[in-house]
């Protein structure tokens, strides 16, 4: 595959992520903050996010596993995850967090647990997608090309 084809593939793949709602405008914002002086900025932020999200998902699992669920605590965790997912543009994750918080308010353990499952799913999905994205970018860079900037 030549460079142009690789770049084409990257653009198409990235567009699909936006189209399917995995990413939103905030991700584009992050891309704009990356430059020669900070060539790995997006990758670094995204990596931090997944460390954070994993931790929060684990804590949510523990919190919901209790006899008497502390919904304030659960809500606080979800709020954090909502914030950080919003900051990197992980739209689907963020949207689950919004629903999750409503169930926290209702103190509905079962629904909360379902949201947690959904969170795990969406988190895992977007992680895989972004890993693919970064891999495609890396292929281009290794081949000596540059990453095409797009405005989605």
């Amino acid at each position, binding site marked *: 595959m030549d460079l142009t084809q690789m770049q084409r593939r990257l653009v198409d793949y990235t567009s699909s992520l936006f189209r399917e709602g995995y990413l*939103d405008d905030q991700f584009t914002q992050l891309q704009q*903050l990356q430059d020669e002086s900070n060539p790995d900025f997006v990758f670094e*932020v995204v990596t931090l996010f997944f460390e*954070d999200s994993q931790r929060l998902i684990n804590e949510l699992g523990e919190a919901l596993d209790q006899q008497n669920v502390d919904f304030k605590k659960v809500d*606080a965790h979800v709020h954090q995850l909502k*914030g*950080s997912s919003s900051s*990197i543009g992980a739209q689907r994750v963020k949207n689950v967090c919004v629903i999750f918080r409503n169930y926290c308010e209702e103190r509905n353990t079962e629904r909360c647990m379902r949201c947690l499952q959904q969170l795990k799913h969406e988190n895992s999905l977007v992680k895989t997608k972004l890993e693919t994205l970064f891999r495609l970018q890396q292929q281009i860079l290794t081949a000596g090309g540059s990453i095409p900037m797009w*405005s989605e």
Partner: protein
Amino acid sequence: MATETIYPKHVVDSQQLHVLAVDDSLVDRKVIERLLKISSFKVTTVDSGKRALQYLGLDGEKSSAGFDGLKVNLIITDYWMPGMTGYELLKKIKESSTFREVPVVIMSSESVLTRINRCLEEGAEEFIVKPVQLSDVKRLKNNIKREEVSVVVTEEHVPIVTHKRKFHETMDSSTTERKIEDATDDSTSDISILSASTSPTSSASSSTSTSSSPLNSPSRRIKTCDDSD
């Protein structure tokens, strides 16, 4: 070749502006730091209100006269933080004779009018809805220069920007107040509120904001209407 290089004032000014950014989220700290640095601010980040006070020497451990760090021109803080909220931090800063003149900006992911007003009444310069974008930081920078004050940005979630009059004479604050409702996470209400209130103001938006997401675009417009000057 001239022996002296004349820099445009804004270049010199921005290089001297130092921001203290406060947020408990590591992801957000990284992003805000980058946003600020790319806008030519010097940045110090801390993860709590307590540490912010320590940095400023306001934690009671140092005398008010002793401030070892770089002069702080702006504090930006998150609203929702465990321990001390951004609002509480704001109050402490405004109580301090040394730092009360330092502009404090609050950031929040939630648009709650009562919260905005409370922070403004306490002396916050501005509220920014998270996620913070480059256009927000650019606008802040312009406002600081215009005001010739330092801005402190706290990463408190501040819904839709409520500009103080000195920042923004043209914005009709009563319009904003009438339209903004006590929304929680309901982004739809934010959209209708914001788009309604943006009509009297300039619709020019920052070039960095492509606003594909409806949630973002109206708030961006409100926030960037300063840039149109």
